[in-house]
C-alpha cells in the first residue's frame, strides 16, 4: 500500500486530497462530514468582507447525457458572518487534529485589514492560510480577488503585508484569468509566500436562453461572467501548473504547489502530481457527486502507485515535468501513422469523414472485394440489414500518405481501435531550433524549404 500522506510546507494531511475553498467547505458541519468520509484536508470557504449572494448563481455546461462537465458561478466569498466561521474553524480543527484545515481569506486591500484577519485566523488553530486572489466576479469589482491576482505588483504588495504578520504557512492562490500565469507566481515568490495554489475559476458565460434571449442562468433578467471550473478546465489547469514547474524562478524557489482545476478522478489527480502539484484540491466533482468520491480518489491513486512502484506521494510529484518542452525542441523526424484494427472497427466512418474533409484525405474505403470505393455507392434499390452490413466498406489508412495528425484517433468511438504507430521516418533527427541555427534559409524561404524537403524526403500532398 502506497503511503499517501503529505507534508505540504508543514501542513500535514493523511492524503493529498483537500476540498477546495468553495461550497463543499462552507460550514463546520459539512467539513465534519467530509472528514468522516476521508478527506485529507479542507480549505475553508473564503472568509473576509461582508457580502450578499444572489439566486441562480450556478450555471453549467452539459454535453449530451453528461451533466456538469463544467460549472459556472457568480457566488461570492462566504456569506456567513465572520465570527461564526472563525468559531467553527476552531471547533473543526480541535476535533480533527490530523487533518489539514486551511483558511482562505480575502479582505480589503489595506495592510490593517489583512493583519487583522491573519491574527484572527491564527487564533483558531488553523494549519495554514490561502490568499484568494482569484475570485473573478463581484469581489473583483470591489478591488479584491482577481483584481489583485491580475496585477503582479498588487499581488506582491499584499502578500508582503500578509507575510509580515503570518506565523503559519501562507499559500497564494492564483487566478487563471491572466495572459501569463508565471508573472503573479513570481510576484508571490518575491514577496516570500510559502506556497502557491492554482487554478481558481475562469471567466465565462455559459449560454443564452433561446426563448427569452436572457443569459443562462438568468438572475432576474441579467447575467454576467462567472467563474468556470470542473472537468472541462483540467487541460488549462495542467498547462498553468506545468508553466510554474518549468519556470526557472518559480521552480528554483522550491515553493510547493497545490493543484486544482477539474480533478474528478484519481487519474486526474495522478496527472496533477506528475506535473508538479504536491497537494490536490477538488470542488466541482464534489459538488456533483458528494464527499463520497474521496474513497476512489485515494483507492485508485494508491493502487496505481503500487503498480508503478511509487512508495510515497513525493516520489510521484513532478515526474513528468521534464517531458514538458516546446515546439522548437520537438524532433521533426518523429513519425507516427494511424492504423485501424479491423477486428474492433464498427465501420461508422467517422474517421473517414474527419480525415477526408479536414485532414489529409488518406483513409480509403475498401469494398468487400478489396477494391477502393467511395461513400454512398450503393444502389437506391439496395436495402435491408444484410446488404447494408455485408457490402459495407472498411476504412483503411493509406499509411504512406498519413501525416500522423491523430485526428482519426481522437474521433474514433471505439476504444483502442485506432492506434498511432511509430514508424521510422528514415530521416535524421532535427529540431526547429537546430534547423534555424544550421540552415536558417530553410526556415525563412519557401523555395529553400521545398529543396530541403526534397532532399530529406518529406512529401506533403
Amino acid at each position: 500500500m502506497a503511503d499517501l500522506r503529505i507534508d505540504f510546507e508543514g501542513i500535514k494531511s493523511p492524503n493529498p486530497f483537500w476540498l477546495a475553498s468553495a461550497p463543499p467547505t462552507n460550514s463546520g458541519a459539512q467539513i465534519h462530514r467530509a472528514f468522516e468520509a476521508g478527506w485529507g484536508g479542507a480549505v475553508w470557504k473564503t472568509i473576509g468582507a461582508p457580502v450578499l449572494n444572489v439566486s441562480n448563481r450556478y450555471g453549467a455546461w452539459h454535453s449530451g447525457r453528461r451533466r456538469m462537465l463544467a460549472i459556472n458561478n457568480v457566488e461570492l466569498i462566504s456569506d456567513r458572518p465572520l465570527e461564526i466561521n472563525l468559531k467553527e474553524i476552531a471547533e473543526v480543527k480541535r476535533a480533527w487534529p490530523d487533518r489539514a484545515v486551511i483558511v482562505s481569506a480575502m479582505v480589503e486591500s489595506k495592510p490593517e485589514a489583512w493583519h487583522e484577519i491573519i491574527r484572527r485566523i491564527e487564533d483558531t488553530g488553523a494549519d495554514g492560510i490561502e490568499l484568494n486572489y482569484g475570485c473573478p466576479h463581484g469581489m473583483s469589482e470591489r478591488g479584491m480577488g482577481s483584481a489583485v491576482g491580475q496585477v503582479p505588483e498588487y499581488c506582491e504588495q499584499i502578500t508582503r503585508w500578509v507575510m509580515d504578520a503570518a506565523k503559519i504557512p501562507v499559500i497564494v492562490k492564483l487566478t487563471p484569468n491572466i495572459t501569463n500565469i508565471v508573472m503573479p507566481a513570481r510576484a508571490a515568490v518575491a514577496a516570500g509566500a510559502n506556497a502557491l495554489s492554482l487554478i481558481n475559476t475562469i471567466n465565462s458565460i455559459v449560454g443564452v436562453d433561446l426563448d427569452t434571449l436572457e443569459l443562462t442562468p438568468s438572475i432576474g433578467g441579467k447575467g454576467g461572467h462567472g467563474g468556470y471550473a470542473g472537468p472541462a478546465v483540467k487541460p488549462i489547469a495542467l498547462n498553468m501548473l506545468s508553466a510554474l514547474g518549468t519556470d526557472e524562478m518559480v521552480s528554483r524557489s522550491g515553493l510547493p504547489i497545490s493543484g486544482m482545476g477539474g480533478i474528478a478522478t484519481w487519474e486526474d489527480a495522478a496527472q496533477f502530481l506528475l506535473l508538479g502539484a504536491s497537494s490536490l484540491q477538488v470542488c466541482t466533482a464534489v459538488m456533483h457527486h458528494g464527499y463520497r468520491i474521496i474513497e476512489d480518489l485515494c483507492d485508485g491513486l494508491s493502487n496505481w502507485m503500487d503498480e508503478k512502484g511509487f512508495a510515497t506521494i513525493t516520489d510521484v510529484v513532478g515526474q513528468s515535468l521534464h517531458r514538458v518542452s516546446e515546439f522548437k525542441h520537438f524532433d521533426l523526424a518523429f513519425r507516427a501513422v494511424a492504423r485501424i484494427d479491423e477486428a474492433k472497427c464498427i465501420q461508422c466512418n467517422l474517421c473517414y469523414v474527419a480525415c477526408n474533409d479536414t485532414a489529409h484525405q488518406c483513409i480509403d474505403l475498401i469494398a468487400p472485394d478489396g477494391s477502393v470505393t467511395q461513400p454512398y455507392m450503393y444502389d437506391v434499390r439496395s436495402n435491408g440489414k444484410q446488404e447494408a452490413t455485408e457490402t459495407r466498406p472498411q476504412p483503411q489508412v493509406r499509411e504512406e500518405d498519413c501525416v500522423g495528425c491523430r485526428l482519426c484517433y481522437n474521433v474514433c468511438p471505439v476504444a483502442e481501435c485506432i492506434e498511432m504507430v511509430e514508424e521510422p521516418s528514415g530521416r535524421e533527427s532535427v529540431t526547429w531550433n537546430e534547423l534555424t541555427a544550421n540552415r536558417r534559409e530553410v526556415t525563412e524561404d519557401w523555395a529553400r524549404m521545398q529543396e530541403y524537403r526534397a532532399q530529406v524526403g518529406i512529401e506533403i500532398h
Partner: protein
Amino acid sequence: METHPALAEQLPPLSAHEAAVEADRCLFCYDAPCTHACPTHIDIPRFIKKIATKNLRGSAETIYTANLLGATCARVCPVQELCEGACVLGSEHKPIAIGRLQRYAMDYAKAKGIKPRAKALRASGRRIAVIGAGPAGLSCAGELALRGHAVTVFEKRELAGGLSTYGIIALREPVDVALDEAKMIESLGVELKTSVEFGKEITIEEARKQFDAIVMSVGLGATPALGIAGEEAIVDGLAYIEASKVGAANLHVGRNVVVVGAGNTAVDCATIARRLGAERVTMVYRRTQREMTCYEHEYHFALSEGIEFRFLSQPAGVILRDGKTAGLKCLRVELGEPDASGRPAPKAVAGSEFVIEADQIVKAVGQQKPSLASLLGLKTAKGYIAVSEDFETSVAGVYAVGDCIRSHGSASTVMAVEDGKLAAAAIERKLATAEVR
C-alpha cells in the same frame, strides 16, 4: 376510431427526455449503414442529430424528404431487419431505437401541422390517376403532387390507407395514424376519391382519356382458399384483423382458436385472438420453426403472448358438430428435399390424421395475386404485375407499384412507399419529354 384497449398501440411515445437521451447515443455515422438498410434511405443520422439539437421541424422534414409515410413506417417497419438491424451499435451494444425516434419526430410534425415541402413552384398541367390509397399509392400521389402534378386517387374502400388502415394490427399502428397520414397527403393537393372501384365506377378507357398517366397501387387480394372440406366455417384472417380495427361489433373471437399459417399475418391473428379473450390459441404450420416466414422477433413475440405452435401439421378438414366448428383435422408432415422456395418440401403422411380441437379456425396463408392485372391485360410475373425498371407495365403510360408487383422479396409498407417515390420520379422524367395535352 374505437379500438379494443387490449389492442391499443403497444409502444408508448418517447418522452422528450427519452428521445434526447436516445438521440444523443447515435454516433452520427458517415454514409451510415442504417440509411443504406432503410428501403427509402432516410438520412437517419441527420434526423436523429436534429432531435438531439431540438430542431424537431428539421428532423421531420428530413424524414419527409425520403419518406412521406414516415409516421406509419416508424410504427410498422420491421426495424430489426432494416435500419436498426444495420446500426453499428447493434453488435455489442443496443442499436439506436431509430423507429421510435422517427415516430417522435413524426408525432411532432402531426401536432404542429408540419408538411413536406413542395418540390416544384408551378403546376405542371399534368393529370395523373392513382388506383388504390394504400402506402404505395399515397406515397406516389404525394410525391407527384409535390412536383406540381394534379393527382386523383381512386380507392374502392370507404377509408384510405390500404392495409395500414385495414390490415396492420392496431397494436403496431392505430387506425388514426393511417387516416391522418392520408389526410396529410390530401393536403398536398391530392384529390382522394374513396368508395370508387377502378374497373367498375371508372374504367381504364375513361381513365386513359382523362389522365396523362395511371398508377396501379392495388395491393393484393383476399386470403386464398385452403381447399379443404368445411372451408366455409373457416374465418378469413384479413377480415379478422380488419374487424379488430374498424368493425369491433362484427368481431367474434372463439375460446379455443386455431390459426392456420406461420407468417406475420398469422401471428397478428393469433395475437388478436389471445388478447381478445381466447383461452388457447394454436398456430398450425406444415413445416417447422426454422421455415416459418414470420420475422424472428414476431415468433418470439408470439411465444411471449402465450401462443402455442403445432409444427409439421397439414390441415385436412374442418370437424363440425351441430354445424359449429369443433376442430381441425390434420395430417402429420415429413420434410423432404428442398422445393422451389429452397425450403424442404412438406409431405403429408398418409393415414396420420389427428384432430386439434377448436371452436374457431382462422386462416392466414397469404393474399391472392392482383386480379385486376388480367382484367386490364397487363403482363404478369409469377402472377404479379410485371413492370420495367421505371415501374411501367406492359401498357405504356400505366405504372404499377407496391405489393401488386412484389414478385420477389418480402412485401412491406416501406418497400411500397419507396416504389411510390421512385415511380413518381420516373413518371416525371417520362412526362417531361412528352407534350402537355
